[in-house]
Every structure is written in C-alpha cells, then in structure tokens.
C-alpha cells in the first residue's frame, strides 16, 4: 500500500475514470437510447419513440446483410492472412541474426502511414484510366482491367487492409517470440529438434496466448474497419456492394442523417465484437506455462 489514505488513490484515479465515463460509457449508453428514438440529422434532438423499429429494419435491410457478409469475410481473411503472414514473418525474422532490425522497420512501416495516404495511393493503383496497374498491363500489351468492378472490388479493398496491418501483428508476435526463453530451444536442440519441429512443438504452443490476442484484435478490428475501404470505394462503391459494418454505420449516420439507425448499427458492431471475442476465448483457452 503506497498511500495510507484511500482518498488520495481515488483522487489520482478520478481524472482517468472521468474521461472514460464521459468519452466512452456515457456515449455508449446514449447510443443505445438513441437507437429507440427517431433522430433525423446530426445533433438533432430525439423525436418520436420508435421502439424496436430500427432493430426490425436491421434484419430486413439488404445493405446490412452485404456489410455483415463483407465484414465476416474480412474477419476470416484478416485472421488467416494478417495474423498468418505476420506469424510467418515474425518466425523468420526471429531466426535471423543479422538485419532483424531492418526487417522489423520495413514490415512495421505501413502502420505509421496514414490510412488516407494509403487509400489514395491504392486509388491511383486501381484507376482504370492511367492507373499504375493498368499502365503495367499496357506496357506488356495487355488490355486495361476494371479493378474495382462488381466482381473484384471487394478483393481489391481487402488486399490493402490486410497488407497495412500485417506489421502491427508482426511486432506483437515478434515481442512474444522474444519472450520465449532460449534455454527451451537449447534443450530441444540437444534432443534433436530443429527447423519445423522447433516451430510446431515449441514456438507455436508457447506463442498461443499472443496469437489469441492477435486473433481477438483482428476480429474487433475487422468489424469496425472504416478508413481504407471508405477512401478506396466511398459509399460502398460500386452499387453498395463493398459496404462493411463500419462504413455502413458512417453512411447511415453522416450521409443519410439517419442517426437512430446508425446508432443501431453501432450497437450491433459492439455486440458482434463481444460475441466473436467470447467465441475465440472459448476455443483458444488461455494457457499457463
């Protein structure tokens, strides 16, 4: 006990609690409240009581189905590719003796670039007329491709989203790898375990708690992904087929001014985030070593 009086401890904790209350919990509960009242426009006062009307609309709305499907697909792909590739890279970088710092910086670099800049960059890659990809195709005498067509747009949006955050998970996993005691590897080496055996029987089991954290982060991240998809294909372009839960919530709230419905979608995102995190918790139980 550092302080004899608890009052001092409370005084120190109060500012942080105040901020969390004001900027997180109160808006969250207000958001639930807003979803039951008609609010046409930002900063408009709650109007008519709608009851569960917005929640019923949620089940009927074809765009929310598209957004949910896309977000779930994004979730699976981020777990497989983002965390997967980050894991492979982390294991490889951990195994090399020279140049580890260089790779650490290179792989982490996309994280520090703003999503807006990356989005604009990919816009220039995908542009049909004079875009980088079509210029490359043109140099080989091939016809230009419509990269953001109905068939390919979703994939073209998911690629940069997955790419940007690989570095984030890479750093978390690399830190986890650094925490594995070297004597375990040394003992295993004496027993003849090298290469893949070393990875499968020592690294992965000892890293499972860190991987679990990464999986939970990628699940919640994919549910609220917004910036890159919105910049590459605003308003779910083309034809609203590339909406994600985050972009659709923004669209409903800020573009349509349908604040009550936007609040309902926001609540759905939170609920889904909790549900999926719990599922992951259940399947990947925390292990004590």
């Amino acid at each position, binding site marked *: 006990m550092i302080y004899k009086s608890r009052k001092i401890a409370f005084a*120190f904790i109060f500012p942080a609690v105040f901020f969390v209350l004001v900027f997180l919990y109160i808006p969250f509960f207000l958001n639930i409240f807003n979803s039951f009242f008609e609010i046409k426009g930002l900063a408009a006062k709650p109007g008519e009581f709608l009851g569960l009307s917005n929640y019923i609309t949620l089940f009927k709305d074809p765009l929310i189905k598209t957004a949910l499907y896309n977000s779930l697909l994004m979730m699976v792909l981020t777990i497989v590719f983002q965390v997967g590739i980050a894991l492979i890279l982390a294991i490889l970088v951990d195994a090399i003796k020279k140049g580890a710092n260089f790779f650490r910086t290179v792989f982490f670099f996309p994280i520090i670039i703003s999503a807006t800049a990356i989005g604009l960059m990919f816009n220039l890659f995908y*542009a049909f007329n004079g875009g980088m990809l079509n210029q490359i195709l043109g140099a080989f005498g091939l016809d230009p491709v419509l990269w953001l067509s109905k068939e390919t747009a979703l994939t073209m949006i998911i690629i940069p989203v997955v790419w940007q955050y690989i570095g984030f998970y890479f750093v978390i996993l690399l830190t986890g790898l650094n925490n594995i005691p070297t004597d375990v590897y040394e003992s295993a080496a004496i027993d003849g375990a090298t290469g893949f055996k070393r990875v499968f029987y020592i690294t992965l089991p000892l890293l499972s708690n860190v991987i679990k954290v990464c999986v939970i982060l990628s699940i919640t991240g994919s549910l609220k992904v917004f910036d890159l998809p919105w910049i590459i294909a605003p*308003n*779910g*372009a083309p034809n609203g087929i590339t909406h994600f839960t985050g972009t659709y919530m923004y*669209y409903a709230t*800020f573009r349509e001014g349908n604040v009550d419905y936007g609040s309902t979608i926001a609540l759905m995102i939170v609920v889904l985030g909790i549900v999926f995190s719990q599922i992951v918790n259940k399947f990947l139980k925390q292990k004590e070593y």
Partner: protein
Amino acid sequence: MKFKKILSIILVLSLSLSILAGCTTGGKSSELRTVSMFGGTDPSAVDYKAILDGLKDQINLKIKDESSTTNEEWKAKILADFASGNEPDVIFYFTGSEVEDLLKENKFVSIEEIREEFPNYAQNITKNAMSFMEETDGKTYAIPVRGFFEGLYINEDLFEKHNAPLPTDWESFIKAIEIFAKTDITPIAASFADVPHYLIENLIYSAGGSSDHGVSPKTIQEVPDSWKKGLEMFKTLRDMGAFSKDVAATQDPITGNSFKEGKSAMVVDGSWFAGGVPNQKTTKLYPFPAMNGSIKSPTGIIGGFSTGFYITRKAWDNADKREAAVQFVTAMTSNEAIAKFAKVAGAPAADIKLDSDTSILIQQGVELSNKASEIVMPMDSRLSKEAWNSLVSSISGVSDGSKKIDDVLSELVSKNK
C-alpha cells in the same frame, strides 16, 4: 521517489485542468464569435481574411473567427453547437432544409426585425438574390453574397478536333457523345459512387422542366413521370458509352481531373468547379440541354442562392454585441466584399460590376445566369436528406439496370418525410 510523486501530481492536475477546459461557455461578451465556410482551401478564404482584418479596427469587440471548409462533419459540429447553446454570434451558413430545425427554435433574427432598428441593413442585395433566401415561414434570415450555377462544361478544343457538334440541344449532345464514345476521350466525366448529384439534378430537370423538378413527392403518385424518364437516361447514356468504364467506382477528384486534363469532353458541375479549370479559354459553359419533348426552357439552369450571413438570436439579444454583429454582416455583404466573393465561385448577390480578375468561366456562368429564363434550386433543397441520399446511392444500380427505377422512387418517397 519524490520526483515521481511530483510528476504524478503534475499529470493528475493537468488531466483535471483539461476537464475544466472543456467546460467553457460559448463566447465572452467582449468578443464577437463568427463562423463561416470561407476557411481552409476555400477559394474565398484569402479575401474573407482580408475583409476580416480590415474590420478589426472598426468593430469595438474582438473578433474570434472560427471559419473552416464545409463538409458533413463541419455541419454536424455547427448543429451540435446550436443544440448545446454554444452558437456563434454571426454565421455564414446554408438556407432551406439545413436550417429548418434551427429556425423552429428561433435561433436566428429575421432581416425584417433587424431593419426595424437598422433600416439600411442589406439594402444593396438584389431582390432576385433575396427571393432565394425566403424560408417557409415567409421571412428571410440570411444575407447572400454569391450565388451558384450548374451547367455543362465542355472542352471546346476537343469538339473542334473530333468534329463534334456543340451541345446546344439534345440532338447535338447525343451526337457528340456518340462521336467521343468511338475515341479514347470519355464523353462525360462522372462518378456515380461519389458525386452523381449534378447529373441527377440536370437529367431530371432536362426531362420535365422546372414544374416537375420542383416537386417534393410524399407518395408514389406524386412522382412526376419525367423523374422516371430522367433516371432512365442514366442507363441509356451508359449503354452508349457516355461514361468511363469505372464510372461506378471512380471518384469526383479523378473525374474532375480527367476533364481538366482534356481526357473527357464534358462534365456537369457547379460554379465552384469553374475556378480550378486551367484552360479557361478553351472551356465553355452551356445550360444542360432539354430532352426532346420536354417543356424545360433551353436557357433554364439549376442555380440560385443557398448560403448567407445570419445573426443569431443570442447575439441580437446581447446589447454589447448587437451593433457589432450588424456591422460585421454589413461589411461582409458590402458591394466590394461581394465582388471579391463572386469572382472565384459564383454570381454576385448585388448589382455590381465583376472585378477585372474574375475568371473567364465565372464570367460565362454569370452571363448564363443573367440570360437564364428560369433558375431553379436543386432538388436536395426540397427532398429530405435521407430521400436524396437514397436516390444518389442508387444511381450505379439504375445505370447498369440492376435496380428498378420504380423501386428506387418508392424508396425515395418512403424516406421523404
């Protein structure tokens, strides 16, 4: 240990102070808080600042200006300020549906009320410009400085090069599209995912004229047939090859550049587009042509005045601020100020001669407005935001036939509350 204690106390104090910092009330009596959309990259930001600097010596109060470029987030902040009683004293803002709720809450002072005490207030503004400012309660609140116009911008040099007829009527417009569709020039620069707004407006206006364009349907029976005809034209034009292949996904800045770089022959846009066009001499502005059989006047355009300076009730009721607020708006809406605001992006709200450095395209636009047999306000000034956005977001589907126009119009009507 002692250092750590001091550090923690400093941190806690700074956090606590930042809590208190958020508890300020809007504006002191000794300062005039002003807000406008002439901030950031707005083409009039420099002129606005110059007028503001000149005003500082004339007004007794200290001017605290919080101008910014306009977007949906900025509008939300403004509305939130009004909702929390933190509104500015003077604001340059939109009229019509954007301020409907604020007017109901008596947040602004009408010009009629101001003129009872200041009879010369805004007397230099033309009757025509003021007529656009009239709200549904029959009163006017905002003083306009510049209007806007929408039209068909063309790269005339491309028309000459490809022997395409100038789009003075529907036949020549269609003929020009057919000619350009066979070349590597995009006939009409457009982005359905981002800003199809001006094409929607103009195609519907082109199909049915001002009477049909001006309705705000609440039932499907009230939707004019010309709306359907105008929307059907999206598919017809797309099938003709009028737009680039990526029209459903490309974005407004890219299509705008495509026109400015001479890669597209035409673009439908507003007066704000004119200032940024590099080839002012070879670019021409036409009224969007009327479809065959339409009653739309050939010279009619979409345009008008939709923004202006308001004095808030809060400032008016404050004896220290009333005169300063009037002085501020009077300076900002003087003939000299209007000439400055109009030269980069719109028609002047006063009967004045344009500055000699006014861009050629703006001059063309002002001439277009002067010659127009009718100037109609955009549809989004009448439709609810939700209804208008449902129409905007459906255009990609309408243009490729994946969305039925009847369904689109039914959705629009259901959201137009």
